[in-house]
């Protein structure tokens, strides 16, 4: 039997606001990176997933960050790090000053996450297709230790081109990893085109069900649906995966579904327009 839990209205409102803040911070960092460019589209598409996760079930703070009981998170699509840095800034791990050092010389915040537990960055990522295997290892480990920790992983849909991702999909099934929760940010684009142009990878829901996962297609911008996926207990010992229908660049009209924004420079003019749009959501 599945057990449902509804998100309460206050939480939903709060998460929405956090996601909006996260988007504004993504743009702030991208802007401050200047000519060195930033991965903008894929950061914006994950903002609702990360915000819901960190604001509801994955509760971390400076006190518990080294606790053995704490759950674990892996941003396997490491190039989407702006979302990661933004939520960690919101939670007080990364200071406002540090945010502005994004991609600057000697910074702890590079164009891909660099492991830094004190700052809440749990793993170094950036070479695609490596994060989920680590998640599987953690999830097996927690089972062997009889621990209740959950493991959360975000994958890109383009990232799923990598064979190693499918090796971990199979492996998670073998070890009954119901403590593993994976999101595919299914924004339909990758670096140099749409998924359909580069490598057709549709019907992920059917594929992953066939691979033995609790697979569910959800709206990756719906706080309710993300929350529902995280808290619904399926009681069937299978690993959990949400195929999140998202929009690359979500939240800024001229960035949405325009893959020129995969990795590029954000000018002052565009930054101002974008922030204006996002500010309207807070009115």
């Amino acid at each position: 039997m599945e057990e449902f839990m509804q998100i309460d209205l206050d939480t939903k409102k709060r998460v929405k606001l956090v996601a909006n803040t996260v988007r504004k911070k993504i743009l702030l960092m991208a802007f401050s990176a200047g000519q060195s460019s930033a991965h903008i589209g894929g950061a914006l598409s994950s903002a609702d997933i990360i915000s819901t996760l960190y604001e509801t079930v994955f509760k971390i703070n400076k006190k518990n960050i080294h606790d053995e009981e704490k759950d674990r998170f892996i941003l396997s699509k490491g190039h989407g790090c702006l979302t990661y840095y933004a939520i960690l800034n919101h939670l007080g791990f990364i200071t406002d000053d540090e945010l502005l050092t994004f991609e600057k010389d000697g910074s702890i915040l590079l164009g891909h996450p660099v492991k830094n537990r004190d700052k809440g960055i749990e793993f170094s990522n950036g070479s695609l297709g490596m994060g989920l295997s680590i998640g599987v290892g953690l999830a097996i480990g927690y089972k062997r230790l009889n621990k209740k920790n959950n493991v959360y992983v975000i994958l890109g849909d383009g990232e799923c081109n990598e064979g190693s991702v499918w090796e971990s999909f199979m492996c998670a099934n073998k070890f009954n990893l119901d403590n593993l929760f994976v999101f595919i940010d299914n924004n339909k684009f990758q670096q140099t085109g749409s998924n359909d142009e580069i490598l057709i990878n549709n019907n992920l829901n059917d594929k992953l069900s066939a691979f033995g996962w609790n697979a569910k297609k959800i709206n990756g911008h719906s706080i309710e649906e993300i929350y529902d996926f995280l808290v619904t207990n399926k009681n069937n010992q299978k690993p959990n995966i949400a195929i999140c229908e998202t929009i690359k660049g979500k939240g800024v009209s001229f960035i949405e579904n325009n893959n020129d924004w995969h990795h590029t420079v954000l000018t002052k003019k565009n930054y101002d327009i974008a922030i204006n749009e996002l500010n309207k959501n807070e009115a």
Partner: protein
Amino acid sequence: MKLDNSKVKLYSQIGTRATFGLACIELLKKYENLMVCTADVSTSAGLDRFRKKYPNNYIDVGIAEQNLIGVATGLSELNFKVITTTFSPFQALRCLEQIKVNLGYMQNKVVMVGLASGLVLGSLGFTHASIEDVGALRSIPNLNLICPSDSGEVVKALDKALENKNSTYIRLTGGSNNTIINQDDYDFEIGKSIELKKGHKVCIISNGQILSECLAAANKLDEINISTSVINMHTIKPIDEKKIFEISKKYKLVVSVEEHNVIGGLGSAVAEQLIKIENSPPQALIGIQDYYEKGGNYFYLKNKYSISSEKIFEKIKNSYECLRKI
């Protein structure tokens, strides 16, 4: 292929990656069975035009580098001329065993182009900066390794690599607006180094864009009466043994400079030769001393790792002065 004098400036402006993309279009005129294969990085490899204009000669396998080398191997079996490309860590390391078995062991022939190697992507962190590719690949038999000094040399290296019987890894370094090392046309042969500057006391052996730092350092060394040669050892494997033998007889100090870990790279390759020669001069190994720095831009990292022209100058000056005291 001849170096077109009128294009040298453009090549340097657009950098080694975009020059590679242009070169592929030229090479298609020579080999109609050319196949350019990539892993969702056409834009980063300057291949946008090629992709649009020549879809029959272009294959994108998706973000799947192991598959990339397997697919390239299959094509090579049917005698296609095959070029693969992606960012250097993914081109060299992600598919390392496919390279070993398919290209090294079976000797199927593929030309691999590792984009943005060395430190130029330092602000993206060390998943993208690439200081291990030469070391890893050098240990695989039947593979040529070339690190072109500038954009023009990328074109020459590609051309020669396609003619050569072995597979080749071409390591691209530097960013856009890179330094022109070779202004006029010259002979480029795999395994045959080029003397860029003549001196008689110290000999710097280097390759890639870091040669620009070496040349600047050598000029400064000349000024303080340490007359210094600079050799473009563009081919790391097969290494130019004959030249290294000559060098060992001529200079008081040999210095290898590389934008790579000193373990396994050009410096190691040079040392492996010098050690065979009786009374060979001492060698100073300048390069990345086996650790990961914090990230930062190209200039920042060259400084941190002490491979900027000033640091190279200092280091050679000190080594040379120590020598004289002995």
